[in-house]
Structure formats: C-alpha cells, structure tokens
C-alpha cells in the first residue's frame, strides 16, 4: 500500500479532534497570515493558479468562481460553506470536521478575505450534531485568538462566522436551495441567473463552497501552487482528495489520496479488496448520483476529467463498491428511491418522473415488467435528464442511465425470468 502525502488528514488521530494549540503548532493559521499580507485579488489569483476544483460534486474551478465574485461591491456579502453532505456514499466532510475543524475555519477566513465577504455561514446537516459541536468550539477558539471577528490579525478586516444546523433533506445541498434554507424560506432551488454571486443570501452577493474545498485553501496559501499541483498523480490535476469508501469492501474508511490514483488501487489497496473474497462487479465512483464504473474501468484515474471520459463523474469521491452477487437493478432501485424521496417537489420531471421510475424499477425487480416497461424506462430517462429545474433529478439519472448502458442485460434477465436472478 503506497503512503501518500497527507494534507487534510495530516493531524488526524482516531476519535480525537485537533484543538487550536496543536493545529497552530503544526503550521495552522499560517495560510491566513500569508493571505492577510496579500491583496484580496492576489489570493483569488493564487487559488486560481493552484488548479483547485470544487470538492462538493460539480468540480467547478474554485479560483474562477471566486474571480466572478463582485468583491469590491459595497454592502453585505456572504460566504457560505456547504456542509450538507447528504448524498449516499459521502461522508468525507464529516471525517474532516471531526478530525481537524480549524482547517475549515481558517479556509473560510481566507476565502472571506479574498472575496471581501463579512459574514459566513457553515450549513451543516441535521445528522452532523457531532461536527456542529466541534466546529462551534473551533470557532470560539479562533475568535479568542483573533483569527475571526473584528480586525483579524490586525488587518482591519472583519469576518463573523455562524453555524446553521439544518433539519434534513438532501436538496439543501444544492446551493440555491441552501440559501433559501438559510433564509428560512421553503428550500426550493432558485433559478439561475441570477447566480448567487450576483443575488444570493438575502439578495446579496454570496459564494458557496464545499467544506473540503475551503479546508484545502489554507494549505495552498501556506505551501504554494506548485506544491499543490504536485500532490496529484495526474499531471493535469491538482491536490489530494478525500475518498470515502463503502459497500462490499474489507476496509470502508475515509482516505486522503492523490487525485489521479487508479480505481484499482483504491479498491484493492485501500479498500482491502472485496469482502469475503468475492469479485468486484461495479461501483459508484463518487456518490449516489455518479454513473457506475465496472471491471472495465479499474485502471481509470479517479479524477475529474478521466472519469468524465468514461461517462461517469468524480462527484464527491465517495466510492461504493458492489460485489459480484449484487443485483444492479436493485441497487438502482434503492438509489432512485432516495432521489424520489428527496425531491423538493418544485418541478414536474423530478417530483413525478422519479416516482414513475421507482415504480418501473419495482416492477422490473419484482418480475412484473414487460418489454414495454423497459422502453418506458428509457423514455423516462431521456425526458428527465437535462429537463429538470435543478441538478437533483439530473443526478438521479446518473445511475439509471448507467444501468441501461452497462447492465441492460440484467433488466432483460429480470423480465425473462419474471423475477430477480440474484435473489437467493
């Protein structure tokens, strides 16, 4: 098993949370100090040069997003950290916050300075009460030490940071829903444009980034862009990534690995191979919305562009592995049920289309389906994909589409046999 440079997890110890003294001792808040000596625009430029891409799922280049932000517009501006993390198979942000929460605090202080946003919110899902408490503690320490609040490190820059605990629902991970949620409105997504950078929280310019994205920023400021780019195994990429392993693996843990590592290495070395000596059949490479990878893809680099080349996505890098005995219809059914249940109910394709797909997958799985149902499944996918209001339904189509593309024969087997071929 290769040992890779640990950045985000360098201080991590099982069942412990790093507090301020230790964080500072290990180089913490050096990034903030460095940033405060630069112009805000220079910080943006640095992050842009580093090649950091968003870790929340969409992989949008962070520096470019920041450069669109109207930092010099007067009045309130907000920085929101997206810690909703409700996509099945994704648990990396929790690991990061439990282990070393100051990284996020520091990252947000830097980002707020770069964007000249005075107020920040960390949006945390309901189930992450443990993270909530660790984060509040870290914020308290940081305020005490002058890293947050008024006149940060004597720079004259103020930034206040709040933590908001949510009350469930995956859609709040979508950034515009999250803004509605923070405002205390019904968390349906908003139409874009206007983008949050123009009209976000309370109608003011707002930047939304993922926990891991923001936590990475201090390290870039401390160590520079070249160092960051060299972390990745893929020369076209930059940095490390938290991979949360789950499913039929021997070791289902969260690892910090370089971008560009192969799926094989993730599964076999870090995941310890498939449980009970079974064979690998397929996996979700990055959460419930990412199209399946199969044995054909074991040597693909786990990175943004290479995965898109094989019609999948890196997503959140939550790798869920399925063994050879798994019925892919049943897997898809479970995933689709999640999306149907978590639909916000705003647009028709998602609200009623996903439940139609659920019904079709039920029929297939339980052997009631005919070829007409298969045809109907196909036309449903075609008309939901790219037609919904936000990306939730789009994501939901990832696995269904992959099922049709990679495992159509399993569907046909179900239809022919009038039941599930994998049922024991």
């Amino acid at each position, binding site marked *: 098993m290769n040992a890779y440079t640990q950045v985000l997890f360098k201080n991590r110890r099982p069942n412990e949370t790093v507090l301020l003294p230790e964080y500072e001792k290990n180089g913490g808040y050096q990034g903030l100090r460095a940033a405060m000596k630069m112009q805000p625009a220079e910080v943006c430029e640095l992050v842009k040069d580093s090649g950091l891409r968003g870790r929340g799922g969409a992989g949008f280049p962070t520096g470019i997003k920041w450069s669109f932000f109207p930092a010099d517009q007067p009045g309130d501006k907000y920085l929101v950290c997206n810690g909703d993390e409700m996509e099945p198979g994704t648990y990396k942000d929790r690991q990061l916050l439990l282990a070393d929460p100051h990284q996020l605090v520091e990252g947000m202080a830097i980002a707020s300075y770069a964007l000249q946003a005075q107020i920040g919110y960390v949006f945390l899902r309901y189930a992450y009460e443990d993270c909530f408490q660790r984060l509040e503690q870290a914020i308290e320490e940081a305020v005490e030490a002058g890293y947050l609040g008024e006149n940060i490190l004597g720079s004259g820059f103020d930034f206040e940071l709040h933590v908001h605990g949510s009350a469930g*629902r995956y*859609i709040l991970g979508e950034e515009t829903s999250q803004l509605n949620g923070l405002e205390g409105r*019904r968390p349906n997504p908003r*139409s874009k444009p206007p983008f949050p950078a123009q009209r976000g929280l309370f109608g003011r310019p707002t930047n939304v980034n993922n926990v891991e994205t923001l936590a990475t920023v201090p390290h870039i400021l401390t160590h520079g862009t070249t160092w960051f780019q060299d972390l990745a195994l893929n020369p076209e990429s930059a940095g490390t990534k938290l991979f949360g392993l789950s499913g039929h693996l021997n070791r289902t843990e969260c690892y910090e690995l370089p971008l560009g590592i192969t799926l094989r290495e993730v599964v076999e070395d870090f995941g310890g191979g498939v449980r009970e000596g079974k064979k690998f059949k397929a996996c979700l490479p990055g959460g419930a919305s990412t199209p399946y990878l199969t044995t054909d893809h074991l040597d693909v680099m786990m990175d943004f562009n290479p995965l898109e080349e094989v019609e999948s996505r890196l997503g959140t890098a939550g790798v869920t592995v399925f063994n050879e005995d798994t019925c892919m219809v049943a897997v898809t059914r479970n995933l689709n049920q999640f999306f*149907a*249940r*978590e*639909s*916000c*109910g*705003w*647009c*028709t*394709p998602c*609200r*009623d*289309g996903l*439940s*139609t797909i659920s*019904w079709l997958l*039920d029929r297939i799985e339980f052997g009631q389906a005919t070829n*007409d149902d298969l045809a*109907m499944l196909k*036309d*449903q996918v*075609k*008309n939901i994909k*790219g*037609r*919904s*209001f936000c990306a939730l339904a789009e994501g939901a189509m990832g696995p269904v589409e992959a099922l049709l593309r990679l495992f159509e024969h399993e569907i046909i087997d179900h239809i022919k046999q009038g039941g599930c071929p994998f049922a024991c």
Partner: protein
Amino acid sequence: MFQFLRLEYKGLPYRWTQHDKRIVFYVFLRVSVPPWRIDLKMPKLTIDNLEVTVPDGTNVLEAARELDIVIPHFCYHEALGSVGSCRLCAMMFVDGPVKGLQMACMVQAQDGMVVSSTDPDAMELREHVIEWAMTNHPHDCPVCDEGGECQLQEMTVAGGHGVRRYRGKKCTFTNQDLGPFVQQEMNRCITCYRCVRTYRDYCGGTDYGVFGSRNRIQYGRFQDGALESPFSGNIIDACPTGVLTSKPFRFKTRLWDLQEGPSICPHCSLGCATIPGGRYREIQRVKAGINRETNGFFICDRGRFGYDHANHPERPRQARLDGQPVTVDAALLAAREQVAAIASKHGPDSVAFLGSPRSSFEASVLLHDWAKATGSLQLVYEAHQGRDRAARTLAARLGKQVRSQEELRQSDLVILFGADPLAEGPMLALAIRQAVRNGGKVVVIDPRPVALPCVAKHLPLPPERLSEVLMALGKNDLNAFEADERSLLESLVEQLKVAQRPVLIGGADLLGGQGVQALCSAAEQLSSEQRSVGVITMLAGPNSYGGALLSGHGPDFDSVLDAVQEGTVRALVCLESDPFREARDPARAQAALGHLELLVSFDSTANLAAQRADIFLPTRANAEMAGSYVNNEGRLQAFLPVIDPGVPIRETGAGNHPPREFFQTTPGSAPEADWLLLAGLLDRKLNLVELRESIERDHPQFAGLSSITAETTGVRLTARGDLPPAEEQELPHAATAEALTLMAITGQVGSRWLAHLSSPLAATEPQPYVLLHPELAAELNLATDERARLTTHFGHCHVIIRTDEKMLKGLVMVPQLWDTALEGMVPGGLLDCRLEKEVQR
C-alpha cells in the same frame, strides 16, 4: 389538413388546429406595450419560421403567442410571471444566442433567436410532463366541477398524452374546509403552485400556503377555516384544474351548459371585467374577465360572489300600477302620462328625476332626455349629496391626470386621502399592492384604519381635515400642522418631489365635492413638465361618472328634497335608486318623500322606493342585459347579457322538479333593460346599436359609444362634466360634550346594497359592530368583543365592540348596518351617538 374547433378557454375564444401530431393553441391575446416602454429595444426573433418583433423583456412563450402559437403551460401566468417549475412550455432553440431545449417562459426574447415549437424533442417532453402531472390524478372528470374549462384537460389533449401508463399506487390527500367560497379537492392537484402565487404573492393573503415536499405537496391553510383574503376567489380562476372550485357554484351546472358572457362588475366604480355565468334562470357564478387596463386578470370577492341579488326571492318582477299588477306597457304608459300631467298642471319643475350609479349609461342618458323633454331641471344622478358632488367635481376636473388601475400598478408613490380601497373599490387595493411589489411606496391619510394588502404608512386625521392637507401639499406649506403630523407630511413632500409616477387616491364618501376639488387641484399643482401627478377617485357605483357627466348644472338631491317638502316638486321618478335609504339624511328623505303625489320607480331590487312606488317597472340585473357603464376614470365599457330574467327554476320547483305545467311565458320574465324601458317610454329606438348611434348624434361629447364592444378595454371619454352648485353646509351634528361622534363607513365585501342581497356574501357579513380606538374604548369602559348598545337619532341597535390602534382616536365607526334601525346611515356622514355597555341579563 386544418381542422378548426371552438373551445371556451377560461372565457376566451380559443381556436385550435390539429396539424399532424402537433397541436397548437391559438388564443386571441396580444402583448400590449405600455406607453413608457415604447422607446425600448424591440428584439426580432423567428418562431416556427415566422418573424415576430416584441418589446424587450417579453419571454419567448409570450412572443409565440403574438404569432397565435400557444405553447402549453401551467406555471406561467402573465400576471404571476415565470418560475419555470412545471417544465411544460418546452421549445427548441435552434439558433441564436440561446441554444437547445429550453422552457420558453424562462427565456427572454432576443434578437436573432430561431425557435421551434414543433421540434420532436420539445413535443416529447411536453407529452411526458403531462404524463407525470397526471400520475396521481384521480381521473374523476365526470364528477368534477372544472370539467369543461379544465386547463389540465386541454393541456393533456394539447400535449398529446392519451393513455396512462403508470398503474402504481396514487398519492391521496385529505381536503381542508376553506370556508364558504372555495372548495378543495387536493387529489386533483398537479402542483403548479399557481394558487399560492396568486393568493400570497399577487393578492397579499397571509393564510394560505404550500406544505410538504416531493410528490406530497399540499396547499391550504395552517388549520381548517375560511380563507381571509378579500381576493380569495381568485385561486378558483388560477387553479388550472379542479382542486379549487367555487363552493356556491358547486354541482349547479356542467360548464358546457353554462351561459357566459363578458360583463362589467356592478359593485363599485372601478369597472372590472367579469364573466358571469347563468343557467336555470339564475346567475350562478362570476369569474374574472381580462382587461389589462383595469382589473388585469383578477377580481375581488365582492364582485365574484355578489351576483345573487339577481336571483333574490323578493326581487320584484312584476310591473305595478297603484299596487295592482299590470303589463309593462300599461305601467310605462301610465308613467309617461302621469308625469306629463303633473308637469303640465304644476309646471315642468314639479317633476324630479333621480338616476343612479347602478343604471346603464344608456338609461342615464335617456333619463336626461326625459327630463329635458319634460322641461324639468330637477335631474340628479345620486341621492347622496356628498357622493354626488364628488362624482360631479371629478367629472368636471379630471383631465390628463386620470389614472387607470394598470397605471396605478406601475406607480412609485401612492397617497390615499380618505380612501379605503378594500371597502370602496377592492381591486384598487390589489393594484396598490402591485405598485408596492414593483418598488412603490404607500401613504394613507385617513381617520379609518384602512387595511391594505401591503405595507403602508398611516396618518389618522379627521375627515374634515383631509382637504386641508391636500391644499397644504399643493401649496407646499405645512405650517398649520402639529409637529407629529408635520414630520410625516414633510417626508411626503420629499417623496413627492422625486417620485416619477405618483398617484393621489381619494374616496367620494369621505372627500365629498370639496375634497375631490382639493385632490384634483393638488395633483395639478404638484405636476410639472417632467411628470404628471395622477388622480384616482373611488365613486359610489359602476356608472357614477356617467351620471355625473349628465348632471349638468342640476341641483343636488338635498335641494330636491327641500322642494318636495315645500310642495314645489310633486312627482319623483327613481331610476334604480332608493332615496329612502341612499339620501344623506334618510330620516329627512323619508319625511319629505311622504308628500309626493307620484312616485315612479324602475328597479331590479326590492328597495323602499320600489315597494312604495305608485308606478313600478321591473328592470334587469346587470348580467341580464347589454349596456355600458362609465367607470371612475371616465372609461366607457360595454357589457353583454348572459341569461334572460325569470324566476329561478330552483325556486319554482321549491327544491323539487318544477311543476309540469306549461305556460306561454316564463314566470318572472317581465323585467327589461332599464334603457329599453325608457326608450319605449320616449318612443326612441329599441335596438341598442341604433340607440347608441342616436345618443352619439344628440350628445356629441359621448363619441365612441357606438364603437365599443364588450371584448375590448373600453374607451376613455374626453367629455367633461360641470361642477355642482356651491357646496351646502355640513350635515348638522351638534358635537355636544357628552355625545360621541359616529362615522358611517363602508364595511368589507358584503356591505353594499347589491352585495348585501347576495346570499354567498350575506353569509359572511359580520355581526353588527362598531370600531373605535382602544384608548377610547378604555375611556368608555368597553372591551373588545364586548356587546354594546349604539343609539343615534335613527334609533338604537346592538353591536360588538372592535378596536383598532390605527384609527383616529375621537371617532366611533360603524359599517352600514342593513336590516337594523341604523341601516340608513350612509358612509361618510357624521352623527352624534351614545355607546353603552350592554347590561347582561
């Protein structure tokens, strides 16, 4: 290839063509360009190979409609805007600045766009959206009240979805009781969010919302109970399917059997477009018509549920002569001869003519002609002196300053002086709300609390000081005001300086002639080359303005009463008016009118004049006739009949099947249009078109009358009226030390005469109440909701105490209390009163 069918689409003529698999709706609607947008960019785009140029900001769905191509849609509504949630209005953007399949409602038209509505992918998506929307639908069209005007049915056909493939379990919901107006049937919901957007966003209601998520979205109130908004009925029109239907209309008629036509609401002076529907000889419902200049797409609950006066069981339907039933012809002849006889015996001025704001403009003109033919100068169009003077002053003064509801919606500063829109013209409140939603500000100067569906600043001042404020504002001299009043007025002056499209609103009841005079003068004084200050005044009825134009230099009704008292006026002709109740001082009117030799009444309701008339002629209700009204901005608008009058079958059958007897004539069908009766009496043309032409010839100032049709937005008359004679003194009320001052006000929704006669509204009328400031209540040792006894010189009645912090401290306010000893108090008047705690027995 083309097959034309006619469909009724929410009251609009709808034509659709079936072209291969594609179905496109054609609807005769146009995007109008508001005057201040004329100078804007006009992008040109190509839709289905046809070029169209539209004002900047128009979305592609509307642009297509310009070409008569109607893309199926649910969530988009012109008044509610685009939200893009239903995903039905898909079009393919083939070339230009936007590419690919898009929701047409969410894309603004831009130069060079090439768009297709017939693209296979777009059509396939539309079909699927309908399929999804229908997954949980109960398919209960045969028992659904929406059937026949269901947009979901139409879109299902238009979208090409015919066979349901989904056979799984359906979601079901529990319905709520939403009160007397709206019936809910949640299972039919397709989740288009139009009801909440109408109720909350557009109408400003606060008690209706959307709950739950995913495919378990439900709409309703927090708890069961009557919807509180005075615009609640609009969600019935807004709902594209049968979730929200009219409760009073429930199960009465299948919609394809309902007779409908374009009409104008008879309840206030705003002239909102309505579409009444009738069957079985009764008016059964009213829904909003579309007039972009006036009401837009909505109406108030008073207009919607106030149709039932036409079906009132006590409505007089028989002509009478000296208490005996006679034919209409005999009564008409008698009226003509007896009036002529009195005029020739006692001189022409011994006959007085009293028109009304309720009459058609045509009948009002004919009344004028009758008075002229008789030689009488005793012609009045409004029994209430203050309202009469207000209308006549407005008609004499209003010029460029006049504003429509649409212009009000675009205003950036609205100031109300003695105007309570929810009482006097509810849709004006909705227009003000839209102004606020567009960024405008509102200030209210009024002794009443004046609730509005938007935020407003409020300065309570007694009615007699409103003119003072107006004059001070016009002259920009606020020295006469106390410091606390002055601070608000000063900020008003500042706002008035910078406002681009300010509008001053007044109400006839509180302002009277003097106040309207001051309102118009202030608007003129505040206007400049750069911007004109607008004026809107709420008058008493749908044709107040028309009557005012015809009043000339005539007397007001108080002086007619003097003449009756003195014996110089011996005959009175009442055209749809009731001086016994409507005069400023009904007690005095009742005493004076007892001296009359002859009382002639034309009416469609059982009021006191109709009951006491020597000669009575039944007239038709507004929805039973064609005619026109002139609204409070001088807009002349036509309306058409929906049904012919007759005793409702429901009544003749007393709940069972009507009797199996056969008659030559329909029972109760004698009532005729007011103008038809008068034309007959005057030997004039009996055909409306010819009548209108002849009116135009005789009265050139009403040019345009013969050209209006009920489908158009109407024409604004340029004719001016004459100022009324110099103002008379105030109604005597001795403000003695121990007496309280009582002010009559118009209550909400059901409080006006026609509304009061309509059972759906009457059911919501509150118990008699008085309104006072909590401090005054405390002084009188009265508590909210407590019962009290209210005494005036009319008599006494029992009332409930209500308090409101926002109102003027020194007044007690009482809404018109029909069917009590105090029913004669007309809004606006001040009286002495006593208010005592009810002794518990």
